[in-house]
């Protein structure tokens, strides 16, 4: 698994570091941190003090975040510990935490990096005060969430996650998405609500078969979710109960009903209106 952790210099990015560390500890994923700066801007160090438009020292921010992230792992036992070259220590599993600076439009660079690095998950923090945006770059999290081809976790700053809502599509439930939800439940020690979309009585039996499988899956992981059936026509009303969940997870893959219901423009609206963090599974 490869995680792309997209950051800027603001507090919501810094506050997402412990979460990424816990994700790393649970999944042993390769983690790539990415910071971007707009073309024509560069750090004080890079410009030698004479840059065209000096914003922040992105390299320093990234280096600080990198250190903070590494500090979360056991320096000896963790797969992220550096192998001892002197002793030619090559046994065990070694995973990477790398850092990258890119120049250009932040959303576009994040999407390009995720594609080039074949990432499975993009993690991005955002300001809950500014309707899920980045303070100096606007709707970057919304763009990334809407346009990425992999899963995206958008973390709202200072929103505790005690309850997770998982919107599953009865037509297609992938093992990967279930495991990702399990990870989140474990990670946040949260309760899980599973909502299943229903379209009519005729497909009820088909849904029940899937649900039975799902209940067995989670029960076997010692997770006891609340199951709730919701008619497609009531979905927006249901999701508007925004204070109920700290994290809303939705399966947005191509064959998904949710993918059809929430194309990227509608999804952005949903993310802006919702006060919860969002996990979009693809």
């Amino acid at each position, binding site marked *: 698994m490869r995680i792309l952790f997209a950051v800027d210099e603001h507090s919501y990015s810094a506050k997402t570091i412990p979460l990424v560390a816990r994700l790393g500890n649970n999944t042993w994923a390769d983690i790539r941190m990415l910071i971007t700066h707009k073309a024509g801007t560069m750090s004080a160090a890079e410009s030698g003090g004479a840059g065209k438009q000096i914003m922040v020292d992105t390299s320093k921010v990234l280096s600080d975040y990198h250190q903070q992230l590494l500090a979360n792992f056991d320096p000896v036992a963790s797969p992220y510990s550096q192998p001892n070259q002197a002793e030619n220590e090559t046994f065990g599993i070694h995973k990477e935490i790398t850092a990258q600076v890119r120049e250009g439009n932040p959303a576009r660079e994040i999407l390009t990096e995720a594609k080039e690095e074949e990432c499975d998950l993009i993690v991005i923090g955002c300001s809950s005060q500014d309707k899920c945006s980045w303070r100096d770059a606007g709707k970057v999290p919304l763009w990334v969430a809407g346009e990425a081809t992999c899963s995206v976790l958008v973390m709202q700053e200072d929103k505790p996650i005690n309850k997770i809502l998982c919107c599953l599509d009865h037509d297609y439930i992938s093992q990967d998405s279930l495991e990702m939800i399990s990870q989140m439940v474990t990670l946040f020690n949260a309760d899980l609500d599973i909502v299943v979309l229903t379209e009519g009585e005729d497909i009820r039996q088909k849904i029940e078969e899937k649900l039975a499988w799902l209940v067995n899956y989670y029960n076997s992981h010692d997770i006891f979710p609340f199951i*709730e*059936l919701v008619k497609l026509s009531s979905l927006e009303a249901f999701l508007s109960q925004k204070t109920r969940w700290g994290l809303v997870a939705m399966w947005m893959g191509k064959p998904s009903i949710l993918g059809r219901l929430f194309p990227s423009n509608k999804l952005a609206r949903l993310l802006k209106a919702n006060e919860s963090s969002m996990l979009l599974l693809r």
Partner: protein
Amino acid sequence: MHNVLMALQNDLASSIAIRFICQMEELGRFNIQTVHVPDLDKEGDAPGVGFVHRAWEDGVLENARQEISRLMQKENLIRYRPMPPRILLGERDQVILSELLQGDYDIFIEGLLHSFEPDAFLKKLESDLYRNISRPILMVKNLVKLNRGIQVVGDQDTIFSLLPWFFKLWKDLDVKTEFLTCQFDDQSDEIVFLENDTHVISTIEDGWSRSSTFPYKVKTVKGPEMRVAELVRDHALVMSMIPTSWEKMAGILATSPCPVLLCPRTQ
């Protein structure tokens, strides 16, 4: 030891109900009698009359018996040695009511998958079974771990009527219990808590004096229905009097994903 009548269908709601009751079995013994009323409409048109018709009915009964036995086996209910399932023909509500009258049952259990839309729950409240039952009904909507505790919920008129049922059914249950008295006020957007309302506490105390454990929490809440409903969501079991479908309590219980124990007005 309580005598339980459990209605089963071959569906997920019944599977969840069985798992929930198996969980409760670890805390107190039940004598479980299962019952199933086949839906003859699903079997197609009944053929002929006399012998031919009876043979068809026998076939339906036998198929249903096998189906329910398989479900009980699959969900491991058989480890609690329930009686063999009773497969009865007729109008479901009337058949179950009559079975409850004939047997010495303390509680009736059935499963219902929880829906955001309250229709299915309210339809149950309006059914002959729920309107005429004289035993508490445990409606299992989800499988919830018992360590989430029991919530006894009612308004000022009903909360105290639940005490006798509570003591009768769960006196020895070692699970934390919360009492929530609701005062509905739709004029306000906010909810106000009256922690440890002395009137409620003193009345509950009287009933509790015979029991060793005191409720974990006693709360009174005043506010609009929707906000109060948010407080009735995170328990292993919510206990209430059976409301009529137009009461605010019905709306609250319909939106709760927890298993609900609905008690009749009189014992």
